[in-house]
């Protein structure tokens, strides 16, 4: 599977982008809407004209049409052809390549089995659920055994539960098939869960490239930090191993239980969205449960952020709009927080 290189790519909002994506890697292009992520995907696919060079394994493919680039492309709204049944949708790219009907049937059956949708063979897209459509679209994009898989926010129209399941499936599929995969999203959770490497893009510029931990806990600049939601990084003292894979540290007057990594920890980090907030005292043992007061409330693109004073620490927590609307939060009010054990990262 090829290494993809983008050299001085310019198109629309994208200006002089240079990027290297290693073979068999699951790369997530992460950034806000309008950052230029989908444009990059279309450039790699050869669907739009561009300035600069796209190289597959060092070979310039600028003049290769889409069908010579060996790509599978999964679009945001899937766009299954409504007038074709599931079989014909999946077989479409094979029929174009004039494969014989026996081979087409064999390949389609193989894909149907792989994605567990054998029962949908003669259904039309309007008869399918969101998750089923997703699977058919994945099968269609894999039909020609592409070397590169391009996914443009493919889970944005699926409900939360199905999305979670499909994320796991997609990741597993990518590992099994060993395809170089580029996944576009603005969803942090998707990026965190699926990426081998994350490329943060904002306003057509690559802001940071790195692994999940690096991006989420060591953002290189304000743009990345603001988009990711500046992580809470707390200095620790008095490391104490409690056994059973956990340890206790003291962070600015708070006794925090953390996953034990068998080494002394100087700093811990947690993302704002991983801090649970409640107006009422949460039930359960008093482990990692603290009381704090709200010192600021402000809104981001998709969420409400709370600045909290907890012990001697200032923490940033995040709430979705609909949850914030149900609570009666204001500056100065005291609330309860839980630091979720498994989301605390030791730095």
């Amino acid at each position, binding site marked *: 599977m090829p290494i993809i290189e983008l050299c001085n790519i310019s198109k629309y909002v994208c200006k002089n982008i240079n990027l290297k994506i290693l073979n068999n890697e699951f790369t997530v292009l992460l950034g806000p809407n309008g950052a230029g992520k989908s444009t990059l995907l279309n450039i790699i696919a050869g669907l739009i004209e561009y300035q600069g060079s796209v190289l597959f394994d060092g070979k310039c493919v600028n003049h290769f049409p889409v069908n010579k680039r060996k790509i599978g492309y999964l679009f945001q709204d899937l766009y299954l052809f409504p007038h074709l049944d599931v079989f014909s949708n999946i077989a479409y790219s094979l029929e174009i390549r004039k494969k014989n009907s026996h081979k087409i049937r064999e390949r389609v059956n193989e894909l149907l089995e792989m994605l567990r949708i054998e029962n949908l063979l003669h259904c039309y*897209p309007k008869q399918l659920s969101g998750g089923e459509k997703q699977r058919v679209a994945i099968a269609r994009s894999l039909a020609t055994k592409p070397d590169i898989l391009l996914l443009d926010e493919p889970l944005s129209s699926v409900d939360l539960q199905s999305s979670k399941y499909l994320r796991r499936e997609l990741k597993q599929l990518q590992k099994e098939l060993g395809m170089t995969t580029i996944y576009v999203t603005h969803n942090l959770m998707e990026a965190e869960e699926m990426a081998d490497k994350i490329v943060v893009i904002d306003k057509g510029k690559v802001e940071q490239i790195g692994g999940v931990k690096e991006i989420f806990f060591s953002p290189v600049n304000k743009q990345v930090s603001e988009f990711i939601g500046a992580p809470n990084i707390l200095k620790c003292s008095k490391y104490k191993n409690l056994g059973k894979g956990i340890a206790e540290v003291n962070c600015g007057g708070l006794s925090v239980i953390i996953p034990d990594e068998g080494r002394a920890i100087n700093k811990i980090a947690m993302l704002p969205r991983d801090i649970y907030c409640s107006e009422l005292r949460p039930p359960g043992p008093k482990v990692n449960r603290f009381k704090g007061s709200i010192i600021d409330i402000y809104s981001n693109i998709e969420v409400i952020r709370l600045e909290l004073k907890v012990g001697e620490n200032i923490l940033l927590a995040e709430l979705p709009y609909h949850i914030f609307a149900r609570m009666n939060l204001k500056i100065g009010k005291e609330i309860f927080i839980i630091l979720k054990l498994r989301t605390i990262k030791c730095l």
Partner: protein
Amino acid sequence: MKLLRKLIPGWGIVPIIIFLILWEGIARINLISGNFFFPPFSMVVAELYFLTVNGVLGNNFLRSFFRVIIGFSAGALAGLFVGIIMGWKSLIDRALNPIISLIYPIPALGWLPILMLWLGISEILPIAIIFICSFFPILYNTSTGIKMVDKNYIRVAKSLGASNRKILISIVVPLALPNIFTGLKLESGMAWRVIIAAEMVAIPTGIGALMMRAESLMRIDIIIICLIVLAVMCFLFERFFKFLENKFTARWS
């Protein structure tokens, strides 16, 4: 009502039967100045039998029928062809649109005088009128349908490696079918309305001409028969295209 519908199969025919009984009754009691201007239904049926047996109705009907079939088929095919090209190629659309926009609003019968002079009173004349009547609306519906196809389907087909021609044939035209059939359904009925009008004005044979002859002989029963034939043919043609539309699009649209 639902129960009644279940109990009586073909419930829809009841209003027609009531209408025919009323018609027969009103004509029989001489409510509208006698049988002369308003013949009873039974008299119309008797005349229908007579005209069918002596071949007058069949002969005139077949002439109108073939004119419609030939004119409409040619107009529809040409409209589909030009409409697809205009919808697909914006350059051709921009080039042809101004002239077609100018010609389109002219009613089909408005062409009759000039066509009579150009083509003479021949079999070509009604066919040409039907051609014009079908061509422009079908062209418009087709090109609109093609233009309305979501460009993302084209993008997806391209990403799957399809050529432009393949995309047009396998994706764009099928997705434009609902619009195309709307044009065909409307214009197939319109073709019958226009041929009757043209035959009444300028052509000495066909159902329209039969109506005009009946008018001069004050044979209202024959006029009514011709109107019934016209109504049935419009209905059947529209139904035929509705059937085709269902066959090709009902499963997915």
